[in-house]
Structure formats: structure tokens, C-alpha cells
């Protein structure tokens, strides 16, 4: 399963907008660390962009034992961790144990991302926690935070492109500084297209992705999901009417975590990457049970 380190979302218009790069954190607080490039966090933790590797293997830091008295932002986090991550963790770890459980995780994630369903939170937790523990510590939290950030960026880019392409396609006339642009039946009169685009992007940030985009997303994350399986995925999120099925970000994460998790489990049994694995009944059940209503 190859990893794709620089994957540009592909649209049917073959269009690559030369747009300003979106900041990694599209959030009110500007990052306080000196370099806000989206790869800084990955670099400082040795966290590679191919998330199909076991996350644990990328950490050279031992897990924390609560908050050491050392000053600064550490609190169990390696120095250089984005303050936003540390803050979110500490805000929900009320008893300062250095570990948080599922509902605290749900709360922490809702500060930056959204309030994920408990099922999605449990899936995330299952994939990122160590061993049989029901809690996660700073290292695991950082890893999953970055992973979600990567996926969020992907979905944002897809939506941004769709939006931009659509606006361009719909531009009717340009008259000096004023132009009338129709998009989805709404008119953005007397505004430059570029302003309208950003407004629209802002509104649609909670946009959805469809089957093709899901397949591409999983592909860019390193998972070549067979078409037959994609069909099963979409039948779960579809409403049976045959209309275009679209996933919101929560469902996208749920779906992605399931594929990621099952793929990693499978690869554990197929160490030589032959594409096939032989399992005992016991192994088979144990692999799957954690994913049944987590």
C-alpha cells in the first residue's frame, strides 16, 4: 500500500487553482509558534504524512506521568508541541492525571474541530490509544489531533476547489470592478469573484464529500479501497433513494478510521505485504470485534 506524500485533489475540470494557501489552522487564534507551516508539527514529531503506518512507531518520546514541574508548556507534551494542542488537552484533563477518556476527548476535539458523535470518538480513541487502556495521554492526543487536521485540510481543499471551479463556471459578465456572479441560484452582485469565493467557502466549510472524493481521500491517505468495498461504505451512508450520497466531516472521519483500522489490523497479519492473510477463527473475531459498535 503505497503512501502518497503529495496528493493534489483531482477534479473533473483538471483545474488547479493558484489560490493562496489556506493556513493550517483556520481558526481565530493565530499560532504562537514561529512557523505556522502545515508541516512543522509533522516534522517536529517525526510524524510522517502517510498515516497508514502505525502511529506509535513514530514516537521517540516516552509517555508522560502526569505534568512534570518543568516550566513552560510541556505538561507531558514534548517541547515544540503546538500550544493549541496542549491547551485543548489540559482544558479537559480536569484532574490533571495526564490522561483523558472518551467524553473528555469529545470535548477537546469540539474546541478545534467539531463535536463528533460518540461512536466516531470511540473509533478515534481505539485507533490511537496504546494497548487495552481506556484513556489516552499527550502523545496519542497529539497524533490524533494532527491526523484529524490532515483530514480536515483535505476536505477543506476539496470544498475550496469545488467552490472556486463552480464560481468560475458561473461567472456571467465582468464589468470593471462590478460583476454579477450566479452560484447555486444566489447572486453576489457588485462583488469581485474572489470575495464571493471566500464568503462562499466560509459558509460551506461544513461541506460534504461524495463517493469519488471519499475514494480519492482514502487513496491519498494511503488506502486503496476496492470499488466493491466503496459500494458497501456508501450504502451505509446513503438513504436508499439513489441520489448522490454525501458525507459530512463526522461520517468521513468515522469511515476513514474504520478503513484505516481494519487495514492496519490486516497488515499486522500480512507482514510480507502479499495482499492476503491467513487467520485462525480466534484471530479473525478479535480483529473485528473492536469495530462492532465501538
Amino acid at each position, binding site marked *: 500500500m503505497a503512501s502518497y506524500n503529495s496528493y493534489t485533489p483531482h477534479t473533473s475540470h483538471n483545474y488547479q487553482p493558484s489560490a493562496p494557501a489556506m493556513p493550517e489552522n483556520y481558526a481565530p487564534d493565530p499560532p504562537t509558534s514561529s512557523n505556522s507551516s502545515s508541516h512543522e508539527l509533522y516534522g517536529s514529531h517525526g510524524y510522517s504524512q502517510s498515516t497508514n503506518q502505525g502511529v506509535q512507531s513514530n514516537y521517540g518520546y516516552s509517555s508522560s506521568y502526569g505534568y512534570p514541574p518543568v516550566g513552560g508548556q510541556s505538561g507531558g507534551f514534548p517541547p515544540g508541541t503546538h500550544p493549541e494542542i496542549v491547551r485543548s488537552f489540559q482544558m479537559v484533563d480536569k484532574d490533571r492525571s495526564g490522561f483523558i477518556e472518551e467524553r473528555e476527548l469529545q470535548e477537546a476535539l469540539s474546541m478545534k474541530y467539531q463535536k463528533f458523535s460518540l461512536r466516531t470518538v470511540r473509533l478515534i480513541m481505539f485507533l490511537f490509544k496504546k494497548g487495552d487502556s481506556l484513556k489516552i495521554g499527550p502523545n496519542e492526543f497529539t497524533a490524533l489531533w494532527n491526523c484529524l487536521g490532515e483530514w480536515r485540510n483535505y476536505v477543506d481543499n476539496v470544498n475550496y476547489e469545488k467552490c472556486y471551479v463552480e464560481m468560475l463556471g458561473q461567472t456571467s459578465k465582468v464589468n470593471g470592478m462590478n460583476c454579477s456572479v450566479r452560484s447555486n441560484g444566489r447572486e453576489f452582485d457588485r462583488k469581485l469573484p474572489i470575495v464571493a469565493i471566500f464568503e462562499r467557502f466560509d459558509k460551506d466549510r461544513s461541506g460534504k464529500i461524495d463517493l469519488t472524493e471519499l475514494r480519492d481521500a482514502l487513496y491519498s491517505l494511503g488506502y486503496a*479501497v*476496492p470499488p*466493491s*468495498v466503496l*459500494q*458497501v*461504505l456508501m*450504502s*451505509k451512508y446513503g438513504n*436508499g433513494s439513489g441520489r448522490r450520497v454525501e458525507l459530512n466531516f463526522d461520517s468521513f472521519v468515522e469511515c476513514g478510521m*474504520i*478503513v484505516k483500522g*481494519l*487495514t492496519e489490523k*490486516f497488515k499486522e497479519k*500480512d507482514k510480507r505485504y502479499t*495482499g*492476503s*492473510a*491467513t*487467520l*485462525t*477463527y*480466534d484471530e*479473525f*473475531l*478479535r480483529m*473485528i*470485534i*473492536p*469495530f*462492532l*459498535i*465501538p
Partner: protein
Amino acid sequence: MAGIVASPNPTPFGSLFPGSNGNPFASLLPSSFPPGTPQHIVDAFRYSDKDGNGFIDDQELKAVLSTCNHGFSLRTIHLLMYSFTATNTRLMGPKEFTQMFTSLQQWRDVFEKNDRDRNGKIEFHELQQTFQTLGFNVPKAVLKLLLLKFDRTGKTPALDYDKFIECCISVKGLANKFKENESAATGQATFSYESFLFSVMPFVLA
């Protein structure tokens, strides 16, 4: 236990009767009630099939079962549909509905028989006994895992009827998938990446 094994795939495009009343779904001609189907089952199906196209969807099935059988979660409904139609379409015709209905009655018997202390729930030992009777060869440790998955609430995890059905259908279904790929010689099963995901997804995403 008859009826739990997924019925053969109804062929969706097998219609040889093009003139059937201009129904746009004619080419997806659904099954029909087997002769001798009890009237209450026929009535229940017909009542739920509001548009009369010969299929009921998951919400309709959920509604009809909650009135004449038991209140099942949507997840259980999806698992039932998958088991009895062998598809992910979440649409069920009369024949599959009848098979499922009959099966559920058998499952109800199993549940009541094994609920020794009659508290409406099946605990670990009762579940172990049930699986043994049904021939599900689930190791004890895995059984414990399963129970914890289905009941996260108290100290003594136990399954109510809805969860019991959900659990049994999942285990039975997964056991069948395993068997399909099993080598008689080793007792182990070999899956390709695709067959693994494809087999497992309907249970994970019910």
C-alpha cells in the same frame, strides 16, 4: 438454526415478464410470499409497503417489527436485512420478510429458554450456554470481549433481546464468512485484502 443463513441472492434483473403493470421496478421483481404464509405476516408486510412496490426499507421494517415483534435498534434492523437478503440494499421483499419473521420467532424461543433467571437479559454464562447449543465456537475470552462491546453499562454486562439478536446475527454472519474461506485441512481461513474488507464491512457499518 434454519433461516439465519443468508438466503440466495434474488436476481435483480431477472424479470421475463415485461408487461407487468408499468411498474418502474418491474425489472427488480421482488419475491413473493411462499404458499402457506400465515396471514398476519402477509398483512404486516403489506401494511408497511406503503408505496406498494413490493419492497420495504429499513425504517418501514423497524416500524413494523416494533408493533408486532420487538423494538429493534436501526443497527439490528440493518443486520437482519443483510442476513436475509444477502445484499446491502436495505430493501426486503415478501419472501425474505417471511423467512426473517419465522427466524425471529425461533430466536425468541432461544432467548427465553436461555434466560434462566428470567430477568429479560442474557448474561455471560447464559450467553456461553446459548452459543454452545447453537454450535458457535467462540472462545471464552472472545465472548467476554463481545459482551463488553454490546453492553458498556454496568459491572455485569448483559444483553437485552435487541442486543442479543444483534450479537447473534453478527457472530453467525462472521462465522459464515470465515467458513467460506476456511481450509478444511488447517481450520484457518485465508482472505485477500478486498475479501476481508468486503466480508467484514456490512457488520461494522450496520
